[in-house]
């Protein structure tokens, strides 16, 4: 069993309106899988299908080899799930709510819950109804992690968290992976996925646009490089380099857009006495836009 999550042509329509148009996913064990897309792309639909809360219109999905429709209960026991819009009971304290879920799940080590609460700086004695949005979200995170599930499915998990807590949360995600577990993390915010994900999938209009390792995406990516020369930049020679997509001059600095390897570029530029090199690390945002751009222009 290589894949923790496996889908075959998984599709879902709501009253005839397609939300997910047949996706084939294979999420390997022990990775953080970033599931990206703008709002309305079908992220939450995918996640609710995987969680067994809704039924596919076509295709099927397995989690740990368990069919999410016919073996739903067994599959659900192995998942820690954070809904996109997590809600708990307003009249229960964090402690009462998490104890309730611990009883319903069985086999929860309460000291782990306390460690999670401490790590997220969460006071469990407060009623959920009286909590801030950020603290409510922490309750949601705690309930997803509390039973040490083999697979975490987290939908827009950092919504409402302040940056410090966000970092702790991303640390928990990394720890889960280092522990041999698998994390399926959906988001429309790229940098948070970029920080932890090993593989990303980009979803658009209910279809997968790309599934790729983050490292590979970055090496394929278009990056921006600023070269400052001691003399006048050798504009003509730089233009000849195939990897250079675009070039702009400002004084003695050439602002270049480069795709792929930069080896030839530097071989050409070096004899002209480079005073300074500034490279801008490509972030997923640019990659994301590049994929969307391609899609947008038929």
């Amino acid at each position: 069993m290589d894949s923790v999550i496996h889908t075959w042509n998984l599709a879902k329509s709501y009253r005839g309106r397609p939300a997910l148009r047949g996706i084939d996913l294979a999420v390997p064990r022990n990775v953080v899988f970033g599931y990206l897309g703008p709002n309305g792309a079908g992220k939450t639909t995918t996640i609710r299908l995987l969680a067994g809360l809704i039924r596919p219109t076509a295709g099927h999905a397995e989690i740990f080899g368990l069919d999410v429709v016919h073996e739903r209960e067994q599959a659900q026991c192995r998942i820690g799930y954070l809904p996109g819009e997590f809600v708990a009971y307003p009249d229960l304290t964090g402690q009462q709510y998490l104890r309730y879920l611990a009883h319903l799940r069985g086999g929860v080590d309460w000291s782990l819950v306390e460690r999670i609460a401490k790590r997220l700086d969460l006071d469990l004695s407060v009623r959920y109804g009286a909590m801030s949005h950020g603290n409510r979200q922490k309750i949601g995170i705690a309930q997803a992690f509390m039973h040490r599930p083999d697979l975490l499915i987290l939908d827009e998990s950092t919504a409402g968290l302040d940056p410090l807590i966000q970092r702790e949360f991303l640390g928990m995600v990394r720890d889960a992976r280092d522990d041999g577990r698998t994390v399926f993390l959906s988001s429309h915010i790229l940098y948070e996925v970029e920080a932890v994900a090993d593989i990303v999938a980009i979803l658009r209009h209910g279809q997968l646009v790309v599934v790729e390792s983050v490292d590979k995406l970055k090496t394929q990516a278009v990056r921006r490089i600023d070269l400052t020369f001691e003399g006048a930049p050798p504009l003509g020679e730089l233009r000849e380099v195939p990897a250079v997509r675009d070039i702009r001059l400002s004084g003695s600095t050439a602002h270049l857009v480069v795709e792929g390897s930069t080896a030839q570029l530097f071989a050409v530029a070096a004899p002209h006495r480079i005073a300074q090199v500034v490279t801008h690390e490509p972030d997923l945002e640019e990659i994301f836009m590049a994929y969307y751009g391609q899609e947008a222009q038929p």
Partner: protein
Amino acid sequence: MLRSVFRKSLRDQRRALVGWSIGIVLLILLEAALWPSIRDMPDLSQFLQSYPESMRKLFNLEDFGTGTGFLNAELFSAMLPILFIVFAIGRGARSVAGEEEAGTLDVLLMTRVSPVRLVLQQAAALATAVFALGTVLFAAVLACSAAFGLGIGAADLAGGALAMVLLGLEFGWLALAVGAATGRRALAIGVASAAAVAAYVLYVAGQLVDAVKPWQPLSPFQQALDGGPLGAGLPAAYGWMPLAGAVVVALVLPVFNGRDIAAH
């Protein structure tokens, strides 16, 4: 401790149950306190004769001169059935559809609680709550009967209270089932209330119109109120009410198990 959906559901109902209990006790106290002056009215039977015949039939006013007949007419024929039905429908609609609309159902179903277990535990919790309210009714009438000399026996009273419980429970389970099938609380309340009104209309029509009489036993109100309910003993017809409610709940289990849970 909240160890199960059943216990959590009972905990959620505790305030409502206390409030409804107080209301029912006060209502009974008020009616019972009226009894001594009604009983001592010198021309009671003449007064009752002046009511239209249909009213006398509907509320069984011939027996109004006894404590049992008095409470049957005043409370057990309309007021208490309605109160028990309203309580049960409200709780039933809330128990599954309410959770789904609030958005708390998602996480609940990810535990070992399956949709089927959820509905069954909620149905059991609803039954427990309605029985608890019935016990309050029983105790209150027994105490007031002793205090104001209504002379109602414990066995008669137990039958009457049970009729209220079972009548409420049938429509409460119906509301729970509609809520589980659709995920919509307002719809659950609407359907169950409409069914209760229809059942009441059938009961009243059967009482007043001979042509409808053969259909009257189909009405849960007829099953609950025929010949009493105080003093009717323990009619076999009582069995239809929980049976019909249980059948509706059972029918809805595969529907709830197979349908999409609405995203919040």
